[in-house]
């Protein structure tokens, strides 16, 4: 404050002394007063003297007598004149003092007010009525200024406290922490005996006034706690007594010994709790009342001011917002946990389903082989054709099962490639062996063209699965009599693998979605060969895992070429974090 006062104010203030102790202002500078009074009286005195001289001259001229009497008369007149001048001087000095003194008092008082001192009070007992009236106005002005100043200070303080509360409660996303810090700020700010927060459980409907989370601040250990020992199950006794503020307005109780408001039992209960006055405000989280903020006095009644009620409302809004964030965060955490549990359950389920399906499939595939490989007697050509359909269905089921299992591993994040030098020739041979039976039965020609001594570091099982999926895919979309060519070569630091077919191709509008999950082409040359749409997605996941790329070039009706590009020596560090 003093910092902002100009020098003159400091000076004046010093000369005023300690005004707080002396409400009546005394003019302190005698020098200043005399000087002002004399200067102010000068014109008046000069006027009166001039008037006296002129009157004397006139009388001497207009009353002609003998020279002696004229002289005598003149001398008398001069005496009278001098007496009049002296009288005028005395009168002017007096009247000057009567005006100047109160003015000085007012001047000093106003100077003090200008400098921010709102304790001044002027008393002008002997001044003229008009000046006294001015003095009263000055006093009224000072009182009003003092009142506004108090309001201003309160508001600044409120803003500061709200800001502090905001910082404190938003600094954490932990619910317990938020409410605890909130009561610690609100308590001292409201200057009450205690402040506590109760949050209600669940949706706030069934729980009534049962709180499941509570925090309390008390001015000192002398102040009794209003929280029940076990906050989790027992209702909040205070809130049970004063009612729940579902209307989202403050419940202001200046004195609990209020017969109109509470009956005898309630009053006794409140007394037992140690609550004489309280200010309760609902905490609105999102759209519902999630809890209450309660400030209470233990011993004395308290006349809560509008400012305090408003301040509490501000606190409640701030805490509500912070709780909203914290609850959202908590919910998100719970969701993540639940998702994790669900995800694990899903993966376990998938591998269980896969195993359960493989068992019966063993019989289907095995018996069909017995029926068609000549072990069994006399199978007609027609029966053989039908069995072929059953066999193909069995194979497809197996592919679906394998892909589902692979998918669950991709999604579980346990699909990182295990890199090692691999012999691509061996892998390709295994893939072709597996496909050869079907290829022969569907009259497809399967050609392999591998560059010698291909050098590749990759996950052998995954590359085999990717190739298997690409070849199966090619066979699925290639009509009988068609060709499927598998070739591999080194290009720079990459190994490039092509799977080319003379199939039906992929319509241009579908090519973008080829490698997405559950993509299935809308037509295949053979009935019942549509898959679950996971094959190419898995290829892409495998290739991505190897830091490679995969793409397709297709002319509708003429065939497709799928190309995998794999770094020959992937840098293991690239996948360190996955």
């Amino acid at each position: 404050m003093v910092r902002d006062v100009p020098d003159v104010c400091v000076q004046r203030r010093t000369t005023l002394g300690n005004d707080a102790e002396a409400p009546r202002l005394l003019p302190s500078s005698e020098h200043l007063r005399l000087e002002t009074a004399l200067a102010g009286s000068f014109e008046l005195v000069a006027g009166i003297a001039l008037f006296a001289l002129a009157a004397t001259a006139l009388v001497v001229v207009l009353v002609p007598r003998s020279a002696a009497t004229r002289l005598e008369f003149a001398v008398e007149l001069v005496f009278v004149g001098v007496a009049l001048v002296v009288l005028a001087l005395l009168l002017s000095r007096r009247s000057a003092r009567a005006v100047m003194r109160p003015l000085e008092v007012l001047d000093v008082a106003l100077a003090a007010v200008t400098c921010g001192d709102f304790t001044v009070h002027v008393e002008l007992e002997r001044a003229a009525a008009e000046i006294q009236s001015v003095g009263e106005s000055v006093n009224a002005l000072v009182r009003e200024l003092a009142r506004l100043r108090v309001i201003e200070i309160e508001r600044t303080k409120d803003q500061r406290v709200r800001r502090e509360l905001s910082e404190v409660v938003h600094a954490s996303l932990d619910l317990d922490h938020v409410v605890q810090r909130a009561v610690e700020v609100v308590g001292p700010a409201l200057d009450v005996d205690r402040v506590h927060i109760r949050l209600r459980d669940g949706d706030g409907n069934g729980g009534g006034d049962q709180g499941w989370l509570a925090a309390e601040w008390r001015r000192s250990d002398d102040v009794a706690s209003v929280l029940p020992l076990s906050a989790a199950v027992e209702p909040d006794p205070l809130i049970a007594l004063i009612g729940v503020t579902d209307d989202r307005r403050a419940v202001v109780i200046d004195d609990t010994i209020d017969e109109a408001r509470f009956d005898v039992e309630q009053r006794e209960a409140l007394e037992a709790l140690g609550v004489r006055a309280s200010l309760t405000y609902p905490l609105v989280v999102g759209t519902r009342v999630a809890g209450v903020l309660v400030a209470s006095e233990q011993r004395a009644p308290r006349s809560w001011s509008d400012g305090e009620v408003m301040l509490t409302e501000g606190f409640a809004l701030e805490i509500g917002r912070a709780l909203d964030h914290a609850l959202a965060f908590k919910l998100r955490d719970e969701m993540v946990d639940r998702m994790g549990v669900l995800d694990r359950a899903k993966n376990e389920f998938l591998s269980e389903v896969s195993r359960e399906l493989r068992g019966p499939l063993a019989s289907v595939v095995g018996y069909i082989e017995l029926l068609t490989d000549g072990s069994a007697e006399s199978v007609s050509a027609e029966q053989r054709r039908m069995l072929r359909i059953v066999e193909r269905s069995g194979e497809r089921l197996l592919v679906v099962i394998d892909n589902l299992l692979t998918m669950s591993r991709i999604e579980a994040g346990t699909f990182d490639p295990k890199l090692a030098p691999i012999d691509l020739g061996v892998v390709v041979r295994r893939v072709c062996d597996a496909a050869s039976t079907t290829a022969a039965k569907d009259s497809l020609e399967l050609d392999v063209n591998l560059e010698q001594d291909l050098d590749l570091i990759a996950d052998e099982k995954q590359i085999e699965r990717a190739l298997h999926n690409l070849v199966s895919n090619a066979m699925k979309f290639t009509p009988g009599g068609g060709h499927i060519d598998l070739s591999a070569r080194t290009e720079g630091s990459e190994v490039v693998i092509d799977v080319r077919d003379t199939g039906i191709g992929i319509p241009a509008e579908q090519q973008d979605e080829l490698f997405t999950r559950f993509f299935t082409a809308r037509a295949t040359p053979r009935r019942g060969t549509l898959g679950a749409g996971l094959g190419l997605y898995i290829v892409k996941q495998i290739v991505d895992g190897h830091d490679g790329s995969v793409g397709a070039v297709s002319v509708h009706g003429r065939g497709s070429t799928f190309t995998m590009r794999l770094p020959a020596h992937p840098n293991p560090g690239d996948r360190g974090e996955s």
Partner: protein
Amino acid sequence: MSLIFIADDDPDVRELVEYKLVHAGHQVLSAANGQDALRLVPAARPGLDLLLLDVMMPGFSGFDVLTRLRRHEATRLLPIIMLTAKAQDTDVERGFTLGADDYVLKPFSPRELMNRIVAQLVPTGSRGTVHL
């Protein structure tokens, strides 16, 4: 001609394998659960040449049976092929770690299974060295 034991709780699979083996001129013994396999397999030695062992069976699992048989003197060197729908790499690894000689995934081609069996039915004299 060899004597081959199959332990699998799925009667269809047992019948399928038996059919194929009998047609190939082998003799077959079978059990539908782990306990029976543990009781019957050592009793069938030394005439028994090979065991086909399912993993997921009620009671004792195939892995339990495998572990116990490998501790048993009579069956320590018995060729054992795991026959299972447990397709995960970790399961396969576990089977080999516990002492399985081969691992065939369900569903399987009976022809392919016969090839694997034949591969295990080499003269027992040369097998001992493999495990030492």
